[in-house]
């Protein structure tokens, strides 16, 4: 489903963020990306949703060769992908419901579809009671749930999560991980960059470790170290 072949990414200023990275991720997998700060985890994820393009090497996502993807078709490509970040990226003037609805509205979904799907997704992330609240009336964990709901609104095949628990305390993080696990069990491939040792150790999923842009470890039921 996802394949990287000898991928190298050099940022301007001569920072080699990824060097000759090769990896393959199957449909339905749950993959942790670990490694020290600056090892290239975020770059790995940004290459997958085509926010960045590699300097050499090839990337396939859902059978598409990303180097052959025209820039006008990038938006449609991104619709099959949900993205979650450490800082949630919620819109503060919109309610929980509107934040999730916005993601469907701007890809041209009709009002009836939105009215039907948004409550179902809010139910999935456990925020039905708080649909009319604004982000600043929610806890960090709840805000991250909204952002996951928004990422999942279009039922993506792939979910990219960049340190989704980075700002949360351990017990809240567990709740977020349960949610991502649930989404993964519904068939969505999840790739998550994290620094959280206890989460990686307890989930017992595939771990890819990067060190200064190089894959140094790839275990199917790994732990953090």
């Amino acid at each position, binding site marked *: 489903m996802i394949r990287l072949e000898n991928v190298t990414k050099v940022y301007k200023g001569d920072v080699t963020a990824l060097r000759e990275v090769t990896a393959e991720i199957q449909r339905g997998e749950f993959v942790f990306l670990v490694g020290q700060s600056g090892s290239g985890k975020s770059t790995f994820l940004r290459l997958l949703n085509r926010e960045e393009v590699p300097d050499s090497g090839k990337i396939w996502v859902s059978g598409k060769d990303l180097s052959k993807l025209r820039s*006008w078709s990038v*938006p*449609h*490509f*991104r*619709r099959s*992908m949900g*993205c979650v970040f450490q800082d949630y*990226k919620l*819109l*503060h003037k919109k309610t929980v419901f509107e934040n999730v609805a*916005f*993601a469907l*509205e*701007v*890809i*041209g*979904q*009709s*009002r009836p579809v939105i009215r039907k799907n948004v409550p179902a997704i809010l139910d999935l992330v456990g925020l039905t009671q708080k649909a009319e609240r604004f982000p600043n009336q929610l806890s960090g964990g709840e805000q991250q749930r909204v952002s996951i709901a*928004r*990422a999942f*609104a*279009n039922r993506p095949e792939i979910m990219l999560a960049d340190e989704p628990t980075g700002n949360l305390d351990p017990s809240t993080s567990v709740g977020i991980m349960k949610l991502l696990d649930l989404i993964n069990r519904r068939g969505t491939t999840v790739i998550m960059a994290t620094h959280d040792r206890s989460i990686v150790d307890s989930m017992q999923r595939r771990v890819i470790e990067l060190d200064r842009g190089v894959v140094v470890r790839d275990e199917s039921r790994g732990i953090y170290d």
Partner: protein
Amino acid sequence: MYRLWYYFRETFSSIWRNLSLTMAAIFTVAISLALVGASLLVREGAERATAQFQEGVEFIVFMNADAAEDQDLAIREVLDNSPVIASYNYIDQEDAYEEFRNLFADKPDLINSVSPSVMPPSYRIVPSDPSAANVSELADQFASQPGVKEVATATEAIRQIDDFSTRVSQALLVAAVVLVAVSALLILNTVFTAIGARRQEIEVMKLVGATNWFIRIPFMLEGTIHGLLGAALAIPALFIVDKQVLAFFQESDAVPLFRGFAVPEGFVWDTSIWLLLIGGTVGMLGSAVAVTRYLDV
């Protein structure tokens, strides 16, 4: 349908959020387009005012409205017998009134204020030698005849009107072009500010896969609406120019030729449509530049 509603809502909420800049942009467009329109009206007015001097007519002898019959006959006698006059055409009071009515067909007030008896009858004269020196000599001869109100020579009168109108319309046009450029920049800046105010939304839109045009269209609409609203404000100004300024010349008795300084209402409406087109285009171009420069989608 949902999409149209979305564009509409986003565009107007953005305009509302950015009201002071939006107003500045709209008023600048209005002022510059009013000047463009005024310049077009003056030019058209001048063309119509000089229309009497066609088919070789080089000068016109205006008689007093109450000139005695023998004064009139004396002039005609000179015209009929002079070897230097190729031909002439007599416009009696009825004809003059008729022309006046045609010229001001859409201004019944003005027509009602005159009657054939106050119109000056005139001779439109084609000399055999149309050189400027000859024409002015002939004009002087007629001007000193009893019963003659005034002699307008083509060279002098047309030059007067042409000078006046080209100077006015060029000055207006230069000011207008500068202001149109300024308003395009203001629209660009307003749309740029609107983009800045919605950075986060735009980031999320890109993230979830909104297409480039979906992101751009509300901003382009916003700029186009600035242009169109500005033009809409310029149109009443155009009618004021037509009614007040041009009417001032029409009613001035000083130079009879200026009485022809009028444009029909239809022309004012045509000009209005042009203003809307120019305004919309300037707005669309200004916002298109803002969108392509600052919205790297």
